[in-house]
């Protein structure tokens, strides 16, 4: 355990961890939304995100983007990427819901069947992209040159980290507002609390469920954009590890709880960077899981408790 390396640069590691965790948090929202409403884990969500990363990559390469374009162009490309990513991920999520999950819901099958179906969907999506785009990492141009913009102590915060953290927070606040303050959001909360009563109140449950999948997909699309901007790579099976982390983040914060997903994601990112610094990068997953188990032992419903329906309305 290299405590020295950790504490000498603790600020830097914390910032790195937060920026890493912000992406987990955005993906975690997809798990949490679906779980909050359907009480089901949508294990295919990681592939919904993966499709987003490829869609944005395709969009950029179609336009023939090269490294470090002028700022104006870069911003346009990022906004365009956001639209493309959100459309691709949201569309994929919707497709998955309509073609597979709805059928299963009508049969009211046990959660296990959902899980295996989701795994099968993941596999199919992964293989489609693996066969189509190859099995190796696909590189992308860097749109924004990384520069240190802020130095606190010996922690250097760069522009990309700020963009990631700010956009993740904005998306999160927007979603929170949508769920808590709008009419559609009220419908989501109603279905989450009690589907049957909600139906009696004239809420179209299928529409709400579709909305939830699309919202989760849009968040995944945003995460895909931040990912492509930050890491500039994607791969057919990249969703597996990230999905695992995002789901862990959702459970850590309390699955079904939007603010919990944010807290869980950020915390998990920080824990992983601390863990990798203390030992070696190869142990970071072990740290993540051990923390998860410990938290669940003492707070079985996650840090903030699970409640989408009972969200502070």
């Amino acid at each position, binding site marked *: 355990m290299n405590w020295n*390396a950790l504490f*000498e*640069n603790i600020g*830097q*590691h914390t910032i*790195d*961890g937060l920026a*890493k965790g912000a992406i987990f948090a955005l993906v975690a929202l997809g798990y949490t939304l679906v779980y909050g409403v359907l009480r089901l884990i949508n294990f295919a969500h990681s592939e919904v995100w993966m499709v987003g990363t490829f869609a944005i990559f395709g969009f950029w390469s179609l336009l023939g983007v090269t*490294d470090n374009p002028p700022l104006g162009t870069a911003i346009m490309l990022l906004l365009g990427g956001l639209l493309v990513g959100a459309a691709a991920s949201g569309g994929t999520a919707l497709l998955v819901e309509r073609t597979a999950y709805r059928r299963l819901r009508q049969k009211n099958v046990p959660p296990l069947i959902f899980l295996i179906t989701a795994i099968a969907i993941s596999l199919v999506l992964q293989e489609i992209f*693996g066969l189509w785009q*190859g*099995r*190796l*990492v*696909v*590189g*992308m*141009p*860097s749109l924004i040159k*990384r520069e240190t913009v802020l130095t606190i102590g010996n922690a250097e915060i760069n522009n*990309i980290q700020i963009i990631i953290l700010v956009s993740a927070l904005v998306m999160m606040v927007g979603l929170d507002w949508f769920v808590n303050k709008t009419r559609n959001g009220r419908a989501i909360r109603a279905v989450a609390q009690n589907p049957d009563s909600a139906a009696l109140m004239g809420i179209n449950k299928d529409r709400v469920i579709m909305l939830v999948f699309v919202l989760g997909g849009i968040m995944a699309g945003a995460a895909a954009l931040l990912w492509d901007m930050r*890491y*500039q*790579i994607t*791969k057919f*099976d*990249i969703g*597996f*590890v*990230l999905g695992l982390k995002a789901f862990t983040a959702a459970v850590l914060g309390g699955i079904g709880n939007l603010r919990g997903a944010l807290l869980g994601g950020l915390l998990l990112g920080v824990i*992983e*960077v601390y863990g*990798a*610094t203390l030992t*070696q*990068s*190869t142990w*970071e*997953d072990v740290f993540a899981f051990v923390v998860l188990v410990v938290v669940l032992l003492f707070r079985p419903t996650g840090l903030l408790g699970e409640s989408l329906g009972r969200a502070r309305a």
Partner: protein
Amino acid sequence: MKRNYLRALGGVAMAAALIGAAGCQDSGSGTETPSAQCGGTIATFGAFTGPNAGLVIPSLQGSKLAVKQFNEANPNCKVTLQEFDTQGDPAQATPIANQIAGDQKFLGVIGGAFSGESKATMPIYEAASLAMVSPSATNPELTAVGNKAFHRVVGNDSTQGAAASVYFKNTLKSTKVFLIDDGTTYGAGIIKEVKAGIGSLFAGEDKVQEKQTNFDATVSKVKGSQADAIAYGGYTNEAAPLLKQLRAAGITAKFVGFDGLYDPGFVSGAGAAAEGAIVTCPCLPADKAGGTFAADFQKEYGVAPGSYGAEGFDAATVFLEAFKAGKTARADILAFVKAYDKQGVSKYIKFDTTGDVDKTKVVIWAYEVKGGAIVAQSEIALS
């Protein structure tokens, strides 16, 4: 009552049919005996599909090319190359080894492509006195266990690690070298050799894992060490994002990878960040490879021979020469391989007693990524 009788009768008839059928065995395809005076069948196994196929396909293509050219030149000495896909998984390679060993038509084995599957199946091939010639399994341990069947036409990781240390000291004149590996047999094995070779230049190390994409912690460690050179043992999928993140963080230290990165996918994956990266490989530059190999390969497949393409060609050639010399029994071919002593396209091929290619014949080249292509830079002197 009557139905019961019928059932019983049916049961007896079924049993009789089964026993009768068991009596008249169809030998299946498993026991074909070699009949031709010249030629025969060679098996090759490796990860021909799956995520690591990219590293293996060029050597398979090299072997295929060798066999094709041989058959064209010797119409009355037909050689067949049978592929067995293992996806690089030892669990799949073992029953395949049983199949190859049990089928007498197979007279030699090209493979395995990876070290794990080679290690798992070596004892089986040894017991069947089948010669193995691997184009790309580089783990030093493979030739250290005293297996009689295993040979390779490629330098092992310890030679490459030693060469890289020489390169750090003499060519780059590095003062501090940071070591990173992916924890695989291959990556960790090479880095162990480099660590021993560079001695006091060692500045720190980190282990990453397969499928990792975020390397913040590694970047911090490299930064903290103030290294002026980095050695990475591993493959493209982790190296490309790692290198991108190192460069984005403003680290300009020279990046040195090994044959696992001798892969066009690495250059396209890492993009501009790959510029100036060094890749060492115990493989000759295509234009230096003997004869017309590079041109032939280009013509046949429309791409330049990638990693181990020339080695795949050489591995097949060893067996083809054996057939040419009229060997048709496994033991004779094994003896022929052990005594093999000829110029190949990748290097001069002659095996020492452990199955490694003669140490003095191994050449390690340094390649540099320049303008989006892997270009030969210089041969690394091993002494």
